[in-house]
Each structure stands twice: as structure tokens, then as C-alpha cells.
């Protein structure tokens, strides 16, 4: 509590957003509105895309410029809840994040550059995974900014307080039935996402992630986080490096399935040629299309399953292959994904 108060009376480091704050301050002065509301409210009438992009850039930049320690709770409409303690440290060059699961089996993971290290104390097991996705997100942001404005209406939705911090609320309303909506709470001074709700097409909350407790701009050194996670001697080490591939190289044609979803990457799955995981994103939602030989899914059924919270799955047999789409999108979008796949002759 003392730390939280301390952080709130001592403003966050302002080295990066001087210009933006000035702009927002002048908007506030002119309109008498809170910062984000002003930027977005103006956006609906003139050049929504520019303001959405600016809001996204601010949200995206926050974890690159602010350290924090907090507890994040993820809960689903079915009542499942998981929580984790998060240490996030950044410098101009790097971001390091440690996530300790507080629910389920004990598990600590460290995201660092392109690597994810996971420790399983009960099994004395370490998994080291090269993880290209982390380094690539600035590119995704560039294309996602315009895609998000095109496929979601972005509206200010008032202000709130989350984990003791003042937050601006923004609602992202999908313009079609192929994606879910979101409500995003961002910390007023930094733009850090404090809370995120995924909304069903009918408007109910399917899943929400929120900090229950947060200390912002704490002194944290990335090196210290990395040192603290060096695996103890004698633990079993598993290394994996997802092998990148393309649908074409595995003998598949993937037609564009859902507007706004860009192909991100494809990875090989196992030794069998033709089996792969292809990842698509519209910037907010992610879909994986898995292709496996039929025998790996012996007696599975073709079905729609609501898996957990907003994550849905859809499986379909295609000749000698089993195609499963998994993603935080409505089943109708998953159906388009599994139907977009064709075996090349």
C-alpha cells in the first residue's frame, strides 16, 4: 500500500511522452475532457484511424517504458480463475518479464528477448524455448493499427479505478460477427493495460484479465530477474525451438479466411511432413490452425467446443488430416479458418 501511494505521488518517468502529454493536455484544456476520452471522442468525428493508432501506440509502448510488479487474475465466464505474480522490467534495449503461476501446478517462466524459460519445480524440469514472436511485435503494430480501426469501432467508455490506479476505459466494438469485442482499462498516466474484458457478440463478458494489485515504476533491473531464474544444477533441461515453415512448404494452400486476420507465422509440428501450426492475428485476437495426421487424433469428434473463457476450438477431418482451429474468436470465424485449407495436389 505504501509503495502504491509512493508511486502515485511521484509521477512516472516522463522521458518518452513529453510531446504526447502536451498534446493531450491541450486537448483536455480545450474540451474539458479526460485525456484518452478527448483523443478518441474527437476521433469518431474526424479521422478515427489516427487517434486509434495513437491510443494503440501508447498502450503498446507502456510496457516498454515502465517497470511493474503486480498480480494478474484471469477469470472466465464459466468460473475458472487463474492468477500469476508478474515482474516486468525494461530498459531501452530489452524487456524482461517473470510470471509465477499462483494457481495450478507451480511454474515460473521468464520471457527475455526471444527466449522463454519455464521452470517446473515439482518435476525439477527446465524448458528453454526460442520464441520469435516477442521480437516481432513492432511490425505487427504497424499493420494492426489500421486493421483495428477498420474492423473495430473504438469508443471511450468512461473512467474507473483498477488496482488503486485511475484508469480510462475504451470499448472496441467489432464491426462484423467474426471477432469478439473488448473493453480495455488503461492506466491514466502511462497507458499500461490494467484490465481487459473479452465480450461475447451479445455483450456478456466471456473472460477478463485484471491486475488485482500493482506497483508501477518500481526499481527493477532486468539482469537481476534473469539471474534469479538461472536453473538449479541437476534439473532436467528440455530445449525446443519451433521450426518455422510455410503452408506451401508443407503442401497446403491457405486461402484468406477472415478479413483483417494476417498470417503471422507457421511452425512445424513433429516429424510428420504436412503437420503444422499456422498463427493468424487481427492485432487483438489470435487464431492458430493446427494440421495433424489423422491417427494422432484417433477417436476425436468433429465438434465445436467452448474451451475456456474466450478461447474456442473447432476440429474437422479433411481426408487423412485432422484440422483444428483454436482462437479467441467466435466459432463462425474458426469454421472459415478450417475451411480455408486445401491440400495441394
Amino acid at each position, binding site marked *: 500500500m505504501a509503495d502504491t501511494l509512493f508511486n502515485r505521488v511521484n509521477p512516472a518517468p516522463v522521458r518518452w511522452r513529453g510531446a504526447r502529454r502536451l498534446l493531450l493536455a491541450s486537448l483536455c484544456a480545450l474540451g474539458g475532457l479526460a485525456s484518452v476520452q478527448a483523443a478518441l471522442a474527437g476521433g469518431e468525428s474526424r479521422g478515427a484511424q489516427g487517434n486509434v493508432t495513437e491510443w494503440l501506440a501508447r498502450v503498446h509502448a507502456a510496457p516498454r517504458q515502465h517497470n511493474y510488479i503486480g498480480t494478474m487474475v484471469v477469470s472466465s465466464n464459466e468460473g475458472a480463475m487463474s492468477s500469476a505474480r508478474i515482474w516486468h522490467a525494461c530498459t531501452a534495449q530489452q524487456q524482461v518479464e517473470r510470471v509465477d503461476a499462483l494457481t495450478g501446478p507451480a511454474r515460473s517462466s521468464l520471457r527475455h528477448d526471444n527466449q522463454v524459460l519455464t521452470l517446473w519445480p515439482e518435476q525439477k524440469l527446465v524448458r528453454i524455448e526460442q520464441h520469435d514472436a516477442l521480437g516481432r511485435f513492432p511490425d505487427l503494430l504497424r499493420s494492426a493499427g489500421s486493421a483495428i480501426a477498420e474492423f473495430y469501432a473504438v469508443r471511450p467508455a468512461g473512467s474507473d479505478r483498477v488496482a488503486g490506479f485511475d484508469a480510462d476505459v475504451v470499448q472496441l466494438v467489432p464491426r462484423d460477427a467474426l471477432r469478439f469485442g473488448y473493453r480495455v482499462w488503461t492506466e491514466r498516466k502511462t497507458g499500461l493495460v490494467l484490465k481487459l474484458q473479452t465480450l461475447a457478440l451479445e455483450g456478456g463478458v466471456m473472460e477478463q484479465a485484471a491486475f488485482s494489485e500493482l506497483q508501477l515504476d518500481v526499481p527493477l533491473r532486468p539482469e537481476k530477474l534473469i539471474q534469479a531464474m538461472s536453473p538449479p544444477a541437476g534439473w532436467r533441461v528440455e530445449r525446443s525451438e519451433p521450426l518455422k515453415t510455410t503452408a506451401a512448404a508443407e503442401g497446403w494452400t491457405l486461402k484468406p479466411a477472415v478479413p483483417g486476420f494476417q498470417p503471422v507465422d507457421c511452425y512445424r509440428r513433429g516429424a510428420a511432413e504436412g503437420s503444422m501450426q499456422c498463427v493468424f492475428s487481427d492485432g487483438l485476437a489470435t487464431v492458430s490452425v493446427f494440421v495433424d495426421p489423422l491417427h494422432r487424433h484417433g477417436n476425436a469428434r468433429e465438434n465445436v467446443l467452448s474451451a475456456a473463457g474466450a478461447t474456442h476450438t473447432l476440429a474437422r477431418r479433411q481426408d487423412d488430416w485432422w484440422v483444428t482451429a*483454436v*482462437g479467441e474468436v467466435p466459432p463462425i470465424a474458426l469454421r472459415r479458418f478450417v475451411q480455408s485449407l486445401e491440400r495441394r495436389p
Partner: protein
Amino acid sequence: MNKMNTHELVSALADGQLADEELSGGIVALGQDLAAREAWQAYHLIGDVLRSPELAGGSPTPAFMRRLSERLAAESPHGLPAAPVAEPQAPPRVLTVRPANDPVFRWKLVAGLASMTAAAAVGWSLLSSGPAATPMGSQLAGTEAGGGAVMIRDAQLDELLAAHQRLGGPGVLQTPAPFVRQANFEGAGR
């Protein structure tokens, strides 16, 4: 009924493959035969372990179930304890039976398994004295009215969900939520 037949019967009952007279026979066997009840628990434990290591906590032992039946029989019809609770540490173990809508399960339609379980509970309650049988009977009716839809955790689906959370990345909003969620799907055994 010899040993082998009992095991086959319980196996078929656990798979939901029995109907009509065979079904009644299976339930009677569960109610009368200790070996049948042990086989029933073993088959379910095997199924749970195959589906997910998280479910491998095991099921109550026959001794526990006997005590539970006795305690249920001792309950007054209004649900109030007939006498001061003798073993305060025992009741919380009842709660280790997961609710049917607990989302740690991946839900899949398996016709009849829920009513099968309720029917087995009736079988057990036959062991105990009369008063306990009435509330159990109403529970059976309630479960059948509920449609009997049960979702089963699938290890293969868990693997896909974990791979999706792992390689899908945190998205533009950069929240650690996928990394928090990922723990749900990654069994301790991998």
C-alpha cells in the same frame, strides 16, 4: 456372476454402453459387489489419468464412501445434522468431487454419463438405510432433467490450447494474460 463378467459389466457401464436390463444389472452389481465398486473406481481413475494428470487425484476409497453413506443416513430429513458433527475434518473431502460445470474439464457431450453417475450413487445409497435413498432419488431425477451433458478433459486438446497460447503471442495490447492462461492448459507432466 463370475469375476470376469463383473469386470466386463462394470467396464461397459463406465463407458455408458449398457441399457435397460443390463443397465439395471450393472447398477445392482455396483450396489452389492465390493469388487465391482473397486473396478468402477479404477476405470474412472485410469480414464482421468489418461485425460489429464491434473485429474489424477484419485477418487474416494470404499471406506470413505461407506462413512459418507453412514453420515448421510444419519442426517435428518431437513438437512440439519441429527447430532453434533463427530468428525469435523471429514465433510470438506466431499467437496473434492468436482461440480459438473467446473471449467477445468473440457466439455464434451457424452450421453448418459451424468445420469450413470447419479444412478451409481443410488446404488451406493441402497447399502445404507432408507432415509438416505429419498434425497438421492430426487438427485437422479434432477440430473436427467438437466440433459446429461458432460464435458471431458482431453489431453490432445490441452496440448493444442497450450501451443496456441505459447506461440500466439501477447497481441498488440501486450498484456501478460496469455502467459497466465497458458498455465491452465500445461499439465505438470510435460
